[in-house]
């Protein structure tokens, strides 16, 4: 029961329990039915509750890319989901360590040599940084697909800090009712409660120091950078990222997915309705990203033959 095949989806999936980032965890390998995968992709998830919120995008994406003839590995980095280490230990380093180990797992389990990395938001920065470090270590990473990647860590951390203020305001009926300055809380207690996820002072500083352009030094594979926004105007940070990737010698593309609900990307996907049903708030954004990424992937890495 560790695996299944669904002909309607065109894929098989198998649970793995690898050691990633220094502890046991759970991963799932998606592969096409009836043929050997031509290339492999590793999905690097985002930080905190975004790991859950974006999962509903990542699973159908993994299955779509697998059905097209690839192996795709998704996993719980240490501190998340079914992993062995508690969430208090999460850091950029722990994300990177799990992602780097996952590349080794997909090569071994799927028997492929060409590997690319995916990631959204914080997961995009993890994917890009892991690709660069692996390239520096002589492990070839062929391609990167990044959706709304975190380029400046400081902005991302400030966004999380704002979220923690919001959480505290919501809990204002509790004894610690008045919302305090998150920086002050971090200084005093060393931990910020970001919607129930612990953000430690060390992690705050570690991520705040990240400038993705500085992290990327040698990667020369193909890259797709996807901006998700309400309008067509390209964001300067993503434009600079694409130009930087091109400057390193890679083939980089920037695409824009426009949607009226683009600002909900990374936030909870489903909303409970008054009639007790669930409403999917990001179906159109997710469909557009999956379609665009699948098309790009078809040309980014070698493709397998038909079944």
């Amino acid at each position: 029961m560790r695996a299944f095949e669904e002909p309607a989806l065109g894929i098989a999936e198998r649970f793995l329990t690898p050691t990633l980032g220094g502890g046991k965890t759970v991963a799932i390998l998606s592969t096409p039915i009836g043929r050997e995968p031509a290339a492999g992709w590793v999905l690097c998830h985002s930080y905190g509750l975004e790991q859950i919120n974006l999962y509903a995008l990542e699973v159908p994406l993994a299955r779509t890319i697998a059905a097209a003839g690839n192996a795709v590995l998704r996993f719980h980095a240490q501190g998340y989901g079914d992993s062995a280490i508690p969430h208090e230990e999460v850091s950029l380093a722990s994300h990177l360590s799990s992602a780097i180990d996952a590349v080794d797992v997909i090569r071994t389990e799927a028997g492929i040599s060409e590997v690319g990395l995916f990631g959204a938001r914080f997961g995009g920065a993890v994917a890009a940084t892991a690709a660069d470090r692996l390239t520096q270590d002589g492990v070839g990473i062929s391609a990167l697909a990044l959706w709304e990647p975190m380029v400046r860590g400081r902005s991302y951390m400030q966004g999380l800090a704002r979220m923690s203020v919001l959480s505290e305001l919501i809990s204002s009926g509790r004894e610690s009712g008045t919302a305090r300055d998150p920086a002050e809380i971090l200084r005093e207690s060393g931990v910020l409660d970001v919607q129930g996820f612990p953000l430690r002072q060390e992690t705050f500083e570690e991520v705040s120091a990240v400038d993705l352009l500085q992290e990327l030094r040698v990667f020369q594979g193909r890259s797709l950078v996807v901006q998700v926004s309400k309008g067509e105007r390209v964001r300067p940070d993503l434009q600079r990222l694409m130009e930087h990737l091109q400057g390193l010698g890679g083939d980089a593309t920037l695409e824009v997915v426009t949607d009226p609900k683009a600002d909900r990307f990374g936030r909870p996907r489903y909303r409970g309705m008054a009639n007790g049903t669930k409403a999917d708030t990001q179906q159109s954004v997710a469909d557009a990203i999956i379609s665009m990424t699948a098309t790009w992937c078809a040309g980014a890495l070698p493709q397998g033959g038909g079944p």
Partner: protein
Amino acid sequence: VNEYPLFVPFEDQHLAAVVTVPEVRIRGLAVLLQGLGAPRSHRYGLWTWTARTLADRGIASVRLDYPELGDSTGVARLAMDDTPLPHTVAVIDTVREALGVREFATTGNCLGAKISLELAAGVDGCVSVGCIIPGSPKTVLVGEGRTAPHRAARRVSRRMPRLGSFGRQALRSHKIQPRMHFIPEVADAMRNADLMFLHLGSEERHHRLERALATLATDEQASHRVETWFIPAGNTSGMRLDLDLQPKVIGSLVRWIDETLPGAATTASMGPQRATEVAS
């Protein structure tokens, strides 16, 4: 502790689940059911750590992704009045058979609480239910606890937002507190199994919930434990648990499941009981 991820076939779908098994002899099984939209590990890994703590007490557990969510396949409407009960039963039966256990305890919040009550009401071997009630108990109330004045205020609010807002404030300030009418599954569950509401919220709301549940237990002549446990949490709403609440919730659930499954390590209260417990 050993953990086994598996895909349980159900019709043409596959349900992703993780079974946590203690090293020692298994006393029973706990079924951990999250609300709509959360994965099998729940937010903050709540179920993952509940499962591992239960395993230390000789209790196996299973957590699963509902169809269409997490790593499960399939398509489902997933609504409070159309729960994935058959899917959940398929997973429980598979795990019970594999582990050779019959009796199980179930716990959950929101949609998971509703499924838990349905399991207690209709599935043989369910010995106890623990429902997490964060803030409002609307999940277990008929019509989500809305009364005619509240519904009228909502209607007015839609047409005339400012006036509707005043109306809702008035309803709150005058403390018009209608009697709580529980969904039928609550009475059905307490006839067959021990029942506990773990309420996270204000003391005032907790006392109302406690009184209402005690009244229902008396009316139903419940012969099992019927209890409300309380974790002070102000005006918490939904399963957005602050860091300090997470270990309290895990501790309370583990204690309840430990007490209500056979072979309890701690001494469980016997017979009808309507106690309030401050789980602090």
